[in-house]
């Protein structure tokens, strides 16, 4: 029986879908069976980031409606056979979801996969509530800036009051990914540092991902950055994927600037 992880953020554009794609691939590379489900109905883009847009035949809503069975709708990744993908419907809107049908779909997916990862829509509307309703755990993606933190805080508050697990008296485990960190900006105080963010949100840290210019191109190409071993963001996602799979990986300090030789010499004479 697999576990359901919802990837949420509250605010849009913080890298939620990118994180979902990379973590899915990363977990699959650790020999676990993963399915990524795009819950952003009406605005799907996980298919593009995974490079699977031209393979989508049936979507999640069609499976729920019984127009297609799950096997027909699941798309196998070209990169890893452990990774499958279920697309969101692009033509419908969020109102087509209802609790019963979401639960049935997730139960079916849980019986076949070790990890069921849901890419939540931005915002806190019904689409978001259905994403978190049956989640066992949540990964919260934030950027080191105040509006992202506040929206994430709001999203966590809703998670803590509306998820089924909480209603049953259990706790939804919450993990934080701080995305798009620029060391120099953290050092200069323009960006919040991770301690401040953790103090505000009061959840466990899963990993920090540095800003990486390669991410945009990777998304455009449909080849998630985790496949590029030289990329700093890709390496960060690899570490996070390993942590999700239960390995102990040291937390890298990506917030201190990498001081070059010249800067070090300068520092000696100051």
């Amino acid at each position, binding site marked *: 029986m697999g576990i359901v992880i919802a990837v949420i953020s509250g605010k849009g554009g913080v890298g939620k879908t990118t994180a979902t794609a990379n973590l899915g691939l990363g977990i699959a590379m650790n020999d676990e069976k993963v399915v990524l489900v795009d819950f952003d109905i009406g605005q799907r883009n996980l298919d593009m980031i995974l490079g699977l847009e031209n393979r989508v035949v049936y979507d999640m809503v069609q499976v729920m409606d019984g127009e297609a069975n799950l096997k027909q709708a699941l798309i196998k990744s070209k990169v890893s056979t452990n990774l499958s993908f279920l697309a969101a419907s692009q033509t419908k809107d969020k109102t087509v979801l209802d609790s019963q049908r979401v639960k049935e779909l997730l139960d079916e997916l849980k019986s076949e996969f070790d990890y069921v990862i849901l890419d939540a829509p931005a915002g*806190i509307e019904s689409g978001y509530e259905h994403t978190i309703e049956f989640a066992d755990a949540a990964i919260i993606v934030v950027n080191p800036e*105040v509006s992202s*933190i*506040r*929206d994430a*805080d*709001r999203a*966590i*508050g*809703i998670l*803590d009051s509306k998820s089924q697990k909480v209603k049953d008296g259990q706790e939804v485990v919450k993990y934080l990914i701080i995305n798009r960190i620029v060391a120099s900006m953290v050092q200069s105080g323009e960006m919040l540092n991770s301690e401040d963010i953790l*103090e*505000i949100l*009061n959840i466990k840290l899963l990993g920090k991902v540095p800003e990486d210019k390669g991410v945009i191109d990777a998304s455009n190409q449909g080849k998630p950055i985790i496949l590029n071993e030289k990329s700093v963001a890709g390496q960060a996602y690899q570490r996070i994927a390993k942590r999700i799979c239960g390995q102990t990986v040291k937390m890298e300090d990506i917030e201190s600037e990498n001081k070059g030789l010249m800067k070090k010499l300068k520092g000696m004479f100051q």
Partner: protein
Amino acid sequence: MKGKQYSVKVYETSVGDEERFISFFDANYILFKDRLIVVQGELSPRIEEYLKSKSLLYANNIEFPSSRSRQDIQLELEEKQAKELKQQEILAQEFNKLSSRLNNNLKVQDNIVRSGQEVIIEGDLLLLNRINSGARVETSGNLIITQAVEGDIYCNGNFMMIGNSPKANIIFNGVRVDNNLLQEKLNKIELIDNEIIITAILEKEINWA
């Protein structure tokens, strides 16, 4: 002599604005058609004509033989309500005194108050966790917060204690408290003789845990 006794339903009214009177009766005709309409005060020919045309039974300026007039009942009711209100006020005042003296109904909470969440407390509150930006905490009594506050707090008690919180929005008994006045590690905000007085309880250096 023969006599019969009837109980008649009476609608008592007076004509203020003739247009309104007519439109009101037009709209509620079904309700009034079997009643005796008693018009107190002036009854103009126009209204009389109208009532006749609607074949409504009417009478003008009748002193009802009841022991108490409607005004009397109304007055009595108002008096009773005022008395009740005053009693409630006295009770509330007593409760307030008791609460401030005994720290009555003190609630202790240790949950983080996140953006969008509301904590509304009747009585005193001791909060041992953060209030995040976009959250709201409201107490009718005293409020003590030991952690950082970035949200909105509304305290209507006799005092509140709060640390240095530059981002908080603090309303104490309806008055906004200037964050710059809360420089110390822990500050006490009190209402004494209708004046808000802020005193430092713990200075910055001291580690409040």
